[in-house]
């Protein structure tokens, strides 16, 4: 097909950095919006971590010894906000620029191609997510919610989470026709946020349910970050990483196959 021949392989995106430059130019004036994004997970950490923490008392950590509820919930909130941020950037944000602001129509009349746009926007979402993750991890350290130096690996892990969900979110966006379709994205992300052991351990679920929830993506993300923050390393973490890599890979593959439908008509 001619349309697919117009697209080089997705990896070839020589001008993707220009998209990042454009976004930096925009946020240089509206940096307050960028900064404000950092506060939302922080409010949740303080409200849920300490507020509900006082009601719950200590929690039995995965390896049996007691940890504070704040230390338990913080990695869960980091994973959830990494997911939510990546989904927002790769769905609403892309769709808005695509259909309403027509930002990409203008960019496509320049030497930039679709791959530059896709890779550029995912890169920008990752940069943003990384900044937020650094801020959140710093707060966790200051509040004494970190149990192990392995937490340093939580940063690349959070980036991996952002990548996996951004790729899948962008793939989903290639099927979105109107704003009402975004309800389906909520139908997926809200239950993930609420039920994936962010706020309480999977042990509250009875058995068949526990296994089902434990194989959902956000549960794997939370398992990964929580284990690193608490310093409980196990081979399962490699499974978590592989899970997210496959998820991101499949998402990117779908994006590269369908992106022309999104933009070139």
């Amino acid at each position, binding site marked *: 097909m001619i349309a697919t021949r117009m697209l080089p392989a997705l990896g070839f995106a020589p001008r993707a950095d220009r998209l990042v430059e454009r976004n930096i130019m925009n946020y240089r004036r509206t940096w307050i919006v960028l900064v*404000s994004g950092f506060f939302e997970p922080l409010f949740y950490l303080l409200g849920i971590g300490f507020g509900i923490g*006082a009601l719950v*008392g200590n929690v039995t950590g995965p390896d049996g010894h007691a940890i504070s509820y704040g230390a338990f919930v913080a990695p869960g909130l980091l994973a959830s906000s990494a997911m939510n941020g990546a989904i927002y950037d790769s769905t609403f944000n892309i769709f808005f620029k695509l259909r309403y602001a027509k930002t990409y129509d203008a960019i496509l009349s320049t030497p930039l191609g679709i791959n530059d746009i896709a890779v550029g926007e995912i890169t920008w979402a990752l940069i943003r997510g990384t900044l937020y993750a650094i801020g959140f991890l710093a707060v966790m350290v200051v509040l004494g919610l970190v149990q192990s130096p392995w937490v340093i690996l939580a940063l690349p892990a959070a980036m991996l989470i952002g990548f996996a969900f951004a790729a899948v979110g962008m793939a989903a966006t290639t099927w979105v026709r109107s704003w009402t379709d975004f309800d389906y994205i909520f139908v997926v992300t809200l239950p993930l946020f609420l039920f994936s052991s962010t706020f309480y351990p999977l042990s509250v*679920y009875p058995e068949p349910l526990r296994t089902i929830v434990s194989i959902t993506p956000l549960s794997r993300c939370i398992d990964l970050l929580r284990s690193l923050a608490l310093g409980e390393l196990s081979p399962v973490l490699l499974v978590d990483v592989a899970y997210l890599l496959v998820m991101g890979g499949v998402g990117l593959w779908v994006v590269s196959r369908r992106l022309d439908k999104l933009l070139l008509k």
Partner: protein
Amino acid sequence: MTAVARPLPARRPSMTGGARQVFEYKAMVYRRVWRGSVFSTFLSPVLFLAAMGIGLGSFVDGGNAIASLGGVPYAVFLAPGLLAAQGMQTAASESTWTIMGGFVWDRTFHGMYATPVSVAGIVFGQLAWVTARLTMVATAFFVVMLAFGFVGSPFGVFGIVASVLTGLAFAAPITAFAAGQKNDSVFSMIFRFFITPLFLFSGTFFPIEQLPLIIRPIAWLTPTFHGVALARGLSLGTLDPLGAVVHLGVLGLYIVIGAACALITFRRSLSR
């Protein structure tokens, strides 16, 4: 045949200044888009109450929290709080972009003002519509609460009223504010720095006695705290008359002052 233009019989402006017509317009628009709000109206309360009530609840009750919650399970404590807080969130999202858009984007308010509809008609029609929306959302939420068995007393049904009043205590001042805005960048700030903290720290999830002493008076000033306390007092059957008067008074004050400000900002924006 020649048609002769005859003047229409002059009609006196209606008592409500056209508020009923504005309400009807809003309802007509909603009939076209209601499907999009089904998920947020019905499904998300189910998910929220299941996750927070049952999931988090069983976890919290496993600790020794029941005493500080007044002797009830966490779900029964939390549900009326969420009922009131949902009113706040619904009101905020119905009174920000929509209002500014009516002045700046599609200019529907200017269109209304070009007819016999008065400024007061627009403001009160708009607020009446938000009241209807809040009632729908709160009723749906209450039905889900009831189904889960999270309602502690028959008076709990009046939590719907508490939720609507909480919503209006936000809708009126936010509507007034949004009418004066020229672009929408400030609204995401309102959600991040007002709505989210109020949702988390106004007694919805935990008694405000747990907040540091210095912050507590701030919570007392917010409509969310009073709405949550009202809904919870009704649901648990612990509301004392004096407390009820104070809560209603504070919410009423926000609504009246907010509506008065909205009359001013709408008039200013419409005559610009």
